[in-house]
């Protein structure tokens, strides 16, 4: 089955980004296809480069980067939401900035679109 996942919240402020990442991992392990992970609203803040969480806590952004690398995933942040918030061109590994049009294409190709947070 073909999934698109939407991440609507900033990392750390909300557990939603963590849950979305665990969910994405589980669906990939089950052999499903992840068409796109789209980051909207404050979700675009998941792409900030060079975050350094405390050593004894998890690294939300790195978890996404790893998942993207291992599975050749598209992690797309909405360019206009990112521009508004000052998320610059230098993004964490695996993230790309693109338009709502790119998201719209993912919707076309998907059997399920699942939102995490807001």
């Amino acid at each position, binding site marked *: 089955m073909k999934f698109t996942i*939407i991440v*609507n919240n900033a990392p750390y402020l909300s557990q939603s980004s963590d849950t979305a990442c665990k969910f994405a991992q589980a669906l990939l392990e089950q052999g499903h296809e992840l068409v796109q992970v789209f980051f*909207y*609203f404050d979700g675009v803040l998941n792409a900030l480069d060079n975050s350094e969480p405390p050593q004894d806590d998890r690294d939300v952004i790195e978890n996404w980067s790893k998942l993207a690398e291992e599975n050749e995933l598209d992690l797309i942040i909405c360019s*206009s*939401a990112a521009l*508004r918030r000052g998320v610059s061109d230098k993004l964490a590994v695996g993230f790309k900035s693109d*338009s*709502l*049009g790119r*998201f*719209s*294409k993912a*919707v*076309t*190709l*998907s059997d399920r*679109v699942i*939102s995490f947070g*807001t």
Partner: protein
Amino acid sequence: MEQKTCLFINRRSPYGSTHASEALDMAFALSAFEHRVSLIFMDDGVLQLMRDQQTETIGMKNMSPSFKAWEDYEIQHLYVEQASLETRGMQASDLLLDVEIIDSQQLAKVIQSHQFIFNN
């Protein structure tokens, strides 16, 4: 391209966050890319449609003109939940647009008739 039926459930007050305005941007974008988009306003989302919003003093962009852009897009339906209006002491005449006012059971059926639901 395969069109999908997309339903936006708008539950947030305007201005307290950008959720209301950015959700509209997404709805318009999906509509521009040939998806079939409808919107439901419920809970505090009904406040997005209030007439006479004046945002000069809070220094934020007025959302009301965005709703006139409806006509440029092929938005399928605009629904407002009756119960949400009542709880807030509001009536159809308070709203800046003609909308379909429906009860909660009709709303449940609207949800069932769409493929994808977007919440905000």
